[in-house]
């Protein structure tokens, strides 16, 4: 187990270097002399330019710039945002927290819904119930996240059931932690549900396929033959094994979740990474774009790593080999 984790961590290093290189190239190939543009901008103070010039070597050769930038990255220093005049790190830290909360919330919701339904549909394969659920899954897969988000926003603007936009509507200083948390959850509900609705179909289909595949293996037949009870066969023998491949999916899903979350955040006004990167692109805030790109890539890699570790933890076959 330990060796596996160390091996995976070592494999990450070239990946991260390649990733940072691609990000760097994307930003470098932006049109115009970036440094000169910065000097022209009266909103950026000379001190900021001076400090960034020394730490990022903005007037030195490109390769030197890359290594300086990489060095700063390792210290988690992504430079200063031109639009906000604060370090990119601070901005990302605040927004990242919201995005991760949103992702975890919707992930949790969609697993809670998809897995039990998939088990029922898989067990009763071919029945009306199964077909109905499969149809719903098709709908869920084909729904673009921005469309669902717009529908939700429309619905809420008509009914005023839930707050929308931002993370809180209580601004009193003496508001208790519990109240703030409740308020936060209320704001989280709309984007969370949108994402859940969009993701649940794909999860359901994967889980159902896994379940059916496992259900038709000889060891389940053996379990039946030994007279194991139905519940035990379904939950202990089939579900336990059918869930294993899902942990790999969990890692991969982080990526699709980030994509869906970005548009949902923008439409629902949830201050997360997605809306941050859009603002950055619109205001040509390149260091912010670069920082977000690297962080989002890092999140995806991290998600895959967690998925791999989880599957090794739950599946002895992989742990041993």
């Amino acid at each position, binding site marked *: 187990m330990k060796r596996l984790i160390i091996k995976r961590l070592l494999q990450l290093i070239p990946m991260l270097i390649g990733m940072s290189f691609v990000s760097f190239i*994307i*930003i470098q190939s932006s*049109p115009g002399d970036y440094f000169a543009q910065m000097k022209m901008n009266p909103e950026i103070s000379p001190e900021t330019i001076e400090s960034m010039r020394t730490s990022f070597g903005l007037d030195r050769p490109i390769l030197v710039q890359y290594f300086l930038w990489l060095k700063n990255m390792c210290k988690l220093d992504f430079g200063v945002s031109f639009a906000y005049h604060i370090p990119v790190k601070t901005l990302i830290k605040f927004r990242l927290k919201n995005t991760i909360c949103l992702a975890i919330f919707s992930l949790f919701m969609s697993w809670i819904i998809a897995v039990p339904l998939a088990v029922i549909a898989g067990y009763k394969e071919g029945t009306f119930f199964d077909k109905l659920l499969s149809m719903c899954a098709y709908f869920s897969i084909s729904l673009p996240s921005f469309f669902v988000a717009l529908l939700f926003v*429309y619905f809420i603007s008509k009914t005023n059931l839930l707050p929308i936009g931002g993370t809180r509507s209580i601004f009193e200083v003496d508001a208790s932690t519990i109240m703030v948390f409740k308020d936060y959850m209320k704001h989280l509900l709309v984007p969370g549900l949108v994402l859940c609705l969009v993701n649940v179909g794909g999860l359901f289909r994967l889980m159902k396929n896994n379940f059916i595949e496992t259900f038709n293996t000889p060891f389940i037949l053996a379990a039946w033959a030994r007279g194991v009870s139905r519940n035990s066969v379904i939950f202990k023998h089939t579900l336990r094994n059918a869930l294993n491949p899902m942990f790999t999916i969990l890692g991969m899903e982080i990526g699709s979740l980030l994509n869906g979350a970005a548009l949902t955040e923008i439409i629902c006004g949830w201050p997360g990474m997605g809306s941050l990167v859009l603002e950055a692109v619109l205001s040509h805030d390149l260091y912010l774009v670069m920082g977000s790109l690297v962080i989002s*890539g890092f999140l*995806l890699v991290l998600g895959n790593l967690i998925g791999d570790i989880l599957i090794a933890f739950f599946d002895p076959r992989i742990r041993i080999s």
Partner: protein
Amino acid sequence: MRKLLHRLKNHSRLAYFSLWFLLVFYFASFFADILAPYHFDHQFRNKPYHPPTKIHFFDSRGHFHIRPFVYNTVVDDPVFKTYREDHSKIYPLKFFVRGKERKIFFFFKTDRYLFGVDQPAGIFLFGTDNYGRDIFSRLLYGGRISLSISLIGVFISFSLGMITGGIAGYFGGIIDQTLMRLVEILMVFPSFYLMLSLRAMFPLNLSSIQVYLLIVLILSLIGWAGLARIIRGMVLSIKEEDYILAAKSLGLSHWKILLFHIFPNTFSYSITAITISVPGYIIGEAALSLLGLGIQEPYPSWGNILSSTIGNLRVLGDAPWLLLAGIFIFVVLINFNLLGDALRNVLDPKNW
């Protein structure tokens, strides 16, 4: 091809229907110039946010008309954009009406449209937007942009994926290693962030044709990596087949083997993969245009028809028919998904 269609029909009626449905959609947006009652930038200045026009058979005195007709509408409340029908005159719905000349794809000229009504009345099947432009016409014209971007994008990334995947899988060794590492690095980024960052490389204000090409470029650059990896896997297994050995011993060059003996064998997978990946491109274009980074006004695309509703609850409340663009996207996506799934089952050798 014919056999394939027949098998598809036998496998799933629904998917067969999807295929025809998609063809009709493509056909309709290709011939938008004839089918749309108005040109995409034709403005009814006095009719912004007009709700869908009611088509009547009975006039205000209860008389039945065999030819459906509409009433002209006048603004009731200019602030809240409510409209009232003017019952004094009826405007019958006419087919193959004459109007301003339009060009169909630069070649043919037409001055007849499928249907329309006389001015000053308007027929807005899906209502109008903030400039008083007919949404139905814009959706048809927008489909031309959205659907063509997805097709060209798929074609480019597929060619790229085919070439890199084929070369990596066939030659192996150091070439394989480098190409696959490159692919993996591209796949590390969540596509939305990569898409926006690539868009940030270019100025925000580009001409329409530049934006169109840029979107195609960005989408295919993001899409090819996954395809290349899968094609590589297939080529790896195909190249061990005996007939490849036979081709080699006959002295065929590597390129000929790749082109004539390996690629045709990935065909069945390719068709499925193309069908399944088209939705991603449609969503990608819509997302970019929705955020104001893609197709710019006055040109319509399914994304930018929706874009005026973002962050503006009043527009959404006043003119919910703008959301119909989302329904168009959804309908096309679900048909592509149904078709893709059925094709995968039909083309899977296990099911023959």
